[in-house]
């Protein structure tokens, strides 16, 4: 069969394979399929930019059109990764610019992007279409100006939740008058005001614009101007949703929303004035995605608004919604897939709102399609977790954050082992789990035994001994990312399960009890792992070998130790054992 199947037909078959996993499987079938596949692969996803070098990627895949890269580990979102750790995209852009002149898409997450990089992107790729920067940093609005000015066919510019140095809002005016190709624009993370006229004209001349996420500085009164010019919008992120209560503002708003017949997603709502929410009633029944996590107002109108959205699939909201609001949600939104409840005041030990575990239980019981949960609360019980597990065996992502570390079951004062055990035992498709509360090694035994499809696990202030870590590393077959902070895990479990680490993307351990000696041993013995010790207080060898390291980041790689490490990061490899100062020299500081 293989002989008579022409290459271009096989290529055509491969073009219908959407998942990287399938393309990887195909490339391992036989020599000829490997060759054909690598020549026709157009999309690359690299979950850790240090796992492989640009040169290796380019050599294997000569004609790539879309690249997705991730840099810093997830715990960078919680400021656990020190500034300057790494994740620089510039070397990648340089190589990509040389090798792929027809590159169309670049998506980056948690990477350091400079204006230089943005300028290089804007000038190197003639057909550049999509730039997505999620949780990135290091660039200013000048870099954005280059992109706007030079990317003639730009379709998507999404700044995610990046940290942008906002020099001025003028960059938006750099979009040339003949730019009509925009489909998606997300500038919600920007602080300063963009030129509204420029924005208005841009929106008006892009007939295919489907996603528009404004920043806070766009006033509510001006929103109708934009909506009228883009009635085809599918996703809208408002600016500040507040204004003085005036009937003409309200009626303009209501009329504008009435014209948006395709609208499915809403976000924004900074400083929300609840009196203006009814202006959107006409779109509620079509809304599937609603992000109210910036709507810092405690008001029954919010709950009423949410309940109107009977087709809601995704809701992000602050804990102002309270248990009562979640019960209303459970009653009216039967199509809910994903719920995220964020804390309005995480620093206050006392609850400022009446949000407890009951809200989550209600939603779990009332919404049969609920599969993804992120829930911040102040109290939890095993009984509630068991109830959730029983109601929702279809759960895929379950992230529970009880704000107080090591908080026990508030009813029985026991650890929450049983509850989380029930979750992993019942939810057989669980892929992501974050735990909190008082947890002993027992919960890890449950996880190791049952969580066979678990891919990402986040642990903090939990466990009693190495046995906990051992259960996870030896039992969770599908584990790809493990992040741990402030747990009493030491050397034994880590060293015993060293080979497991090669099957995972990465392991993060901070404020644990892993000794410097163990890190050295791991780095020496496992050449395909980069074992990075992050010690901001000083070189790890300044104390005895048994001294624990501050932070440890281990990831598999075929690119060897990286060369862009700052002074507080050391890669453990066989040269480290001789002398740490030699390593410093080698880095070429």
């Amino acid at each position, binding site marked *: 069969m293989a002989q008579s199947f022409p290459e271009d037909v096989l290529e055509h078959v491969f073009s219908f394979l959407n998942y*990287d*996993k399938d393309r990887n499987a195909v490339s391992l079938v036989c020599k000829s399929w490997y060759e054909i596949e690598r020549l026709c692969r157009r999309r690359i996803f690299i979950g850790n930019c240090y796992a492989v070098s640009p040169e290796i990627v380019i050599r294997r895949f000569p004609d790539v059109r879309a690249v997705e890269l991730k840099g810093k580990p997830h715990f960078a979102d919680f400021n656990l990764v020190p500034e300057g750790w790494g994740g620089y995209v510039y070397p990648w852009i340089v190589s990509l610019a040389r090798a792929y002149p027809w590159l169309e898409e670049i998506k980056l997450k948690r990477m350091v992007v400079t204006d230089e990089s943005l300028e290089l992107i804007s000038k190197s790729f003639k057909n550049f279409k999509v730039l997505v920067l999620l949780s990135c940093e290091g660039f200013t609005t000048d870099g954005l100006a280059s992109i706007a000015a030079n990317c003639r066919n730009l379709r998507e510019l999404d700044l995610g939740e990046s940290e942008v140095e906002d020099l001025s809002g003028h960059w938006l005016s750099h979009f040339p008058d003949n730019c009509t190709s925009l489909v998606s624009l997300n500038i919600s993370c920007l602080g300063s005001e963009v030129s509204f006229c420029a924005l208005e004209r841009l929106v008006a001349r892009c007939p295919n614009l489907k996603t528009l996420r404004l920043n806070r500085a766009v006033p509510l009164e001006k929103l109708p101007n934009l909506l009228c010019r883009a009635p085809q919008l599918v996703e809208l992120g408002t600016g500040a949703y507040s204004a003085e209560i005036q009937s003409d503002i309200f009626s303009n708003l209501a009329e504008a929303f009435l014209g948006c017949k395709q609208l499915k997603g809403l976000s924004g709502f900074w400083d929300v004035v609840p009196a203006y929410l009814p202006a959107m009633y006409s779109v509620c029944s079509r809304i599937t995605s609603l992000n109210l996590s910036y709507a810092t107002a405690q008001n029954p109108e919010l709950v009423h608004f949410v309940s109107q959205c009977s087709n809601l699939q995704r809701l992000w909201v602050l804990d102002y919604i309270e248990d009562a609001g979640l019960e209303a949600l459970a009653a009216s939104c039967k199509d809910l897939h994903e719920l995220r409840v964020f804390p309005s005041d995480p620093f206050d030990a006392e609850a400022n709102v009446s949000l407890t575990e009951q809200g989550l239980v209600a939603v779990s019981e009332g919404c049969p399609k609920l599969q993804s949960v992120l829930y*911040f609360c102040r109290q939890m019980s095993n009984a509630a977790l068991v109830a959730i597990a029983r109601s929702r065996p279809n759960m895929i992502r379950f992230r529970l954050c009880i704000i107080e570390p090591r908080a026990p079951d508030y009813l029985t004062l026991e650890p929450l*082992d049983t509850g989380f055990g029930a979750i992993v035992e019942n939810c057989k498709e669980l892929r992501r789990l974050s735990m909190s509360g008082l947890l002993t*090694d*027992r919960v890890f035994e449950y996880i190791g035994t049952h969580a066979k499809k678990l891919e990402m696990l986040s642990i903090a202030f939990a466990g009693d001994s190495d046995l906990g870590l051992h259960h996870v590393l030896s039992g969770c077959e599908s584990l790809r990312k493990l992040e741990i902070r402030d747990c009493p895990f030491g050397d034994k479990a880590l060293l015993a399960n060293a080979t497991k680490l090669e099957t995972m993307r990465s392991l993060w351990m901070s404020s644990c009890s892993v000794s410097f000696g163990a890190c050295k041993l791991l780095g020496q*013995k496992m050449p395909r792992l980069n074992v990075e010790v992050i010690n901001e207080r000083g070189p790890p060898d300044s104390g005895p070998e048994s001294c624990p390291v501050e932070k440890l980041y281990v990831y598999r790689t*075929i690119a060897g130790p990286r060369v862009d490490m700052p002074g507080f990061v050391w890669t453990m490899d066989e040269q480290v054992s001789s002398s740490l100062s030699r390593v410093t020299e080698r880095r070429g500081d």
Partner: protein
Amino acid sequence: MTEVDSEIIKPEMMKSYVWLQTSDGSIQQVEQEVAIFCPFICHEIHSGVGSSKNYPITLPPRVNPPMLSLIFDYCRFHQVPGHSNKERKSFDEKFVRMDTKRLCELTSAADSLQLKPLVDLTSRALARVIEGKSPEEIREIFHLPDDLTEEEKLEPIKNTMDDPRIRLLNRLYARKRKELQERERLKYAEVEEEHVDDRSVDDLLSFINGGNGDSKEARTSKNKKKNRRRKDHQKNAPLNCTSTSNSTSSSSNAVDLNNKDSNVLNSEFRDALVCGNFLPSLGKTSKLLDIEDDRFAREDEFDDDDGDLDDDIDPAIKEKIDREVEDFARRLNSDWPERMQEILSLGQERRTLPVSINGNGSSRRFVSACASFHLFFNFNILCKQIAILDSCEVSVLQSSHVDGFSVPSSCSSFW
């Protein structure tokens, strides 16, 4: 002229036919309106071939009679203008339901006749066959040779469950659990228990629950429970003052509860925990929820606070267990040289680098050889490595909505 007219005028008008010859030499005729749906045939007709039996159109070799028949079934349906999109879709879905071998042949044939819609249809169907399968399965389905050499195929990362050291570790813990259960059974069989046995149960329970290294000193009272929960394992202080004060208050509650203990309470509590806490050894399914319900009910009765069980640990026994764990750890560490030799030797074969293997220097040479990959590497090996690295990544097309709520680190919310 209307259709009816043309029929009256030429009542015997027959559809024109096209003559085709397949690779096996056989010649057949097909209605022209159906055949010209295939661009290849269309071009040949325009070149003047195919209108008579003597000058048939020679079809490309990949088109055999059964495939031709299938193709014309497809064409015959789709060339009729009257069908709705829904009908066409439904026909297509049924049409591609055939075994993979025929699907391949059909794709091939359709491609050589340049019939793009059918090529698309069959290609998609083949992609669905491939989706979700492992390389071995794909190889089998398509009868492809396994010709990537071992060094080109990155050796699959072994399932660490197979690792003998892991199995040893798990066996050790399983044995401990079994011993514990044995003792419990014996305890029920005999009326009186030695005090030492009770403590062994506690020891083992605490060992399996992970008795922390701090507890080496003798503990005298149930207040250990309080200490244990209050103990800050970390050197770093709790994240903010309020959280510290909270933990103080909650543990003082615990002290109160602890003080109303009794031996009866403890043993019944332990019973409950024995049944509830110990999952059967890995591999058996547990009736976790049912058992835990019982435990839950019983504990409500006794108003006990948490699962801490390292009360009254006989220090001697604790020492013994700690020593056992240390021994095992040492065994692990001493195991390394052998294990490393194993990994190294595999690595050497795989990489075919000009590196000599000598006893002391092997690991160093190996690692430095890795560093000079770019000079000596075998291109294919490296490329395969990407495949393995990638093989555990998520699909590029999964939308990555931003997760992670940016909460400052001083806050204890860390998800």
